[in-house]
């Protein structure tokens, strides 16, 4: 089956700034794919290369097998884009805006009118159809961007920060809608800052940083790379716990009076053994809590680690060996701590 999006060594340079640095990524047909990354990671640049708003400097990019530059018409016809910015025609009522967009995609006037109504109903702003964009509330504007992306019935729906600044209810409405579209076969590419959103919606996520791919995995896989924290309260101050510190399951142990924090790989599976070891050391457990790793923590760790790697490699490229040696040691020790937490 043809991939919905395939890029190889995609690069984009703005003078000295490298927005995309050899990005290779595949999004399968029918997939719900998330792009995560801090500001400036290259997410929007990546999307804009696909739709033709940014010219790539190097590499290849195809949408359903169509090169985004040589077969741009076929590639763009497959894409519905709800961008981050409100780039909507202010001169016309929103129903006509949607009709125009459908028309640009070769849809006849009558059919365009039918689709515009359908899209507006679907996102819940049909009663505002004769209003102009500027008169809509912030949430309605977001809904309109989605309606405009849907009016051409795309095979690939690209949502760039679709829920930025919207209220909880609208966010959930949008989630339901895009989930439904994905279940009906539409491939969805989502960029977001809300980790919960990616965790809840995406089959796979790619984490980008400084124009590079840090990793691609399912949200569950990513979470498994992190640590859970078991916090135990004991009846009396626990003192030192050498047996637990030596235990294979413990990545890090911290004792503070009657509170013991142990970082482990899988919290649920480790609890019985930890309780056993605590009792064997003569501690009576009165309370217990397991904090699961969040995708957000993994995300922060991965992008931080990437930042350090980039800084280190840039410095060594500069050839300032001796002074880098000292800094490098410091970095490595921090790197080890990250590794012990399971982040690679």
């Amino acid at each position, binding site marked *: 089956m043809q991939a919905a999006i395939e890029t190889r060594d995609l690069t984009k340079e703005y003078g000295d700034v490298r927005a995309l640095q050899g990005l290779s990524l595949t999004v399968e047909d029918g997939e719900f794919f998330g792009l995560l990354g801090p500001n400036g990671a290259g997410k929007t640049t990546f999307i804009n290369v696909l739709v033709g708003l940014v010219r790539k400097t190097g590499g290849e990019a195809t949408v359903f097998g169509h090169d985004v530059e040589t077969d741009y018409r076929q590639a763009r016809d497959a894409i519905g884009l709800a961008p981050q910015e409100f780039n909507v025609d*202010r001169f016309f009522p929103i129903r006509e805006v949607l009709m125009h967009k459908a028309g640009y995609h070769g849809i006849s006037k009558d059919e365009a009118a039918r689709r515009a109504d359908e899209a507006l109903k679907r996102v819940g702003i049909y009663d505002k159809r004769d209003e102009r964009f500027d008169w809509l509330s912030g949430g309605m504007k977001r809904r309109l961007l989605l309606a405009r992306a849907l009016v051409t019935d795309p095979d690939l729906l690209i949502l760039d920060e679709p829920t930025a600044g919207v209220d909880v209810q609208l966010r959930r409405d949008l989630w339901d809608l895009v989930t439904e579209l994905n279940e009906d076969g539409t491939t969805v590419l989502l960029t977001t800052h809300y980790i919960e959103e990616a965790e809840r919606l995406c089959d796979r996520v790619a984490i980008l940083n400084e124009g590079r791919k840090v990793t691609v995995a399912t949200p569950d896989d990513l979470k498994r790379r992190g640590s859970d924290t078991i916090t135990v309260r004991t009846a009396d101050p626990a003192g030192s716990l050498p047996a637990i510190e030596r235990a294979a399951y413990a990545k890090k142990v911290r004792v503070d009076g009657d509170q013991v924090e142990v970082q482990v790989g899988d919290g649920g599976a480790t609890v019985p053994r930890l309780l056993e070891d605590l009792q064997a050391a003569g501690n009576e457990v009165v309370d217990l809590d397991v904090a699961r790793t969040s995708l957000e923590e993994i995300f922060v760790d991965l992008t931080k680690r990437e930042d350090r790697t980039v800084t280190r490699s840039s410095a060594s490229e500069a050839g300032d060996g001796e002074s880098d040696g000292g800094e490098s040691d410091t970095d490595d020790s921090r790197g080890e701590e990250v590794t012990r937490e399971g982040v690679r």
Partner: protein
Amino acid sequence: MWSVGSRALFRREVLRFVRRPKNTFMPPAITNVLYFVVFGVVLGGRIDRIAGFEYILFILPGLIVLGTISNAFENAAFSIFHGRWNEYIHETLTSPMAYTEMVAAYVAASSVRGLIVGVIIAGVGRVFTPITVEHAGFLVATMVVISVLFAGLGIVGGLWARDFDDLTVMNQFLVRPLVFFGAVFYSLEVLPPLWQKVLLANPMVYMVDTVRYSFLGYADLVPATSLAVLVGFTAVVLAVDVYLFKVGYGLTE
């Protein structure tokens, strides 16, 4: 080239100016009423006939050309620049239309606006003086060519502009001087020989002369040659438009 997509974009562009007559059609109508009142009624009797025609009749073709080209230019430049400024031109750019289709739609719509303004000015002129058309086919051909030419130039301007001020600069410092040194208000014959030659470098001279020939049957130059040169210019400008869209000049990063 004239696909469903082009028609949709053409319709959008035409509706934009048709629904705003106060901004698009009223100003040239009022300006030309003033021209005709001042040059026809107030001053007309004091100015000698030129080439055997009353002054108001002599300048009428020039005023029609002026209104047509400036509106064709302004429409294309504004529409493209405003779309870039507010980024809604992305609706067009991210569509599967070919670049030739996009250019065709923008140019056609802006030419239509120019031609409508030309007809309005002729209508206003008719109130002040009887008008006859000596060469109707020539008139239609020339008007279509010059409106397309300036719509095409407007696209270049709209892509080049970085700010709203740039649009004003183009109109004030490029279009307007070409008009006033374009023999709209006088015949080339009244100028010294050197200036007659200098003005031949101004494309406006050919446009005005050809349209004047169409209305009055009088020309300073050879109308067929002028029209051929204008067609050549227009072809070059349209090719430049398509090229600029293709490379994304002013449109993509």
